[in-house]
């Protein structure tokens, strides 16, 4: 009995410490102040029930691409806000993949209404790929309303995920074929590599 109490007390003390422990990847790749600030955002997302891995990846991306600490923290905080909006739009039962895809959609400028309409047509099936394809179409330069219409049409017909991807691939080929005079590769910015 005595031993059980001690173990219980130890667990109570250790559990919060475990959840607040800094992700070793952050500590290894960012300066200590930036890592601590990012960790705060990650912890707040975890407490709110939001996915945290995309936030860690965003910070690692910034670290590798040589961004300043301030810029990294701002980008991570912005992504956390987009994940929050994504959950508002899709509801508490949305999966991590759906929330991450929806956050990307907001970043591309798509409105929450587009995602809700998609959700109403795909009840019971994952929205992650259709949302991702919608975002990709807009990023490729397709007007948002036209892209939304095409994706909603596929959803209405109950098409599987690979047909959404096929649509995106087809649009990509057509658009790049139509603008073949444009250089295929975007000129790369040259931020220093942070190793």
């Amino acid at each position, binding site marked *: 009995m005595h031993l059980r109490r001690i173990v219980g007390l130890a667990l109570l003390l250790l559990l919060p410490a475990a959840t607040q422990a800094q992700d070793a990847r952050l500590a290894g790749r960012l300066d200590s102040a930036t890592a601590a600030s990012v960790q705060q955002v990650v912890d707040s997302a975890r407490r709110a029930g939001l996915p945290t891995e995309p936030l860690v990846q965003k910070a690692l991306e910034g670290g*590798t691409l040589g961004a300043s600490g301030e810029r990294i923290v701002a980008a991570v905080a912005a992504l956390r806000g987009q994940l929050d909006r994504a959950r508002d739009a899709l509801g508490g039962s949305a999966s991590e993949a759906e929330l991450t895809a929806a956050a990307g959609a907001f970043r591309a400028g798509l409105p929450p209404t587009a995602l809700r309409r998609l959700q109403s047509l795909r009840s019971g099936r994952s929205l992650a790929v259709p949302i991702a394809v919608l975002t990709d179409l807009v990023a490729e330069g397709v007007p948002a309303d036209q892209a939304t219409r095409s994706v909603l049409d596929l959803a209405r017909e109950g098409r599987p*995920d690979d047909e959404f991807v096929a649509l995106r691939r087809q649009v990509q080929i057509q658009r790049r074929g139509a603008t073949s005079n444009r250089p295929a590769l975007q000129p790369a*910015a040259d931020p220093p590599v942070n190793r």
Partner: protein
Amino acid sequence: MSGDRDDRIHDQLLQRAVEELRRPVQLDPVVEARALDQIRIEAAGWPAAPGGFRWGAWIAGAAIAAGLLLAVVFREEDPYPLATRTARAAAAAGEARPVYLRLDAPASSRVAVVGDFNDWDPSATPLRLIGKGGVWAVELRLKPGRYHYTFLIDGRRWQGDPSEPPAAGSDFGAPLSVLTVI
């Protein structure tokens, strides 16, 4: 007269069929390029198992026969091809699947890829030069999901993947691409 007309119709049909058969198969260029790269990767560095050719032929024959049998069995029940159904089953199970990335970078001495799949570690995933045309490639194994990534050329220059869509915006200035694995 009627026989001549039948012959003409028959000839026209035959002509159309021949033209159809002669028409080259149009593949998605990205799929085609990746398939060719994979062949080059295998030819460049992955030796065949010793004495494996005869077994390989038997296994390939058996696989084709099994595939044809399954295709016939499932033909009436599912409008999608067997390969599509197999890929969907793998995706539904959340299994990692091979993904081939390639980049034409003829004047480069080394190319790596960094992204969500390798914690953005520049040393984790180097590409291999295949052939003599300056094509670099790598095979990844990725679970279904969405991945942001970019190529690092000669340790100092970032370049997006022209085969995949650009990411919507870049927080840190480098061109990013996004890959959806289903």
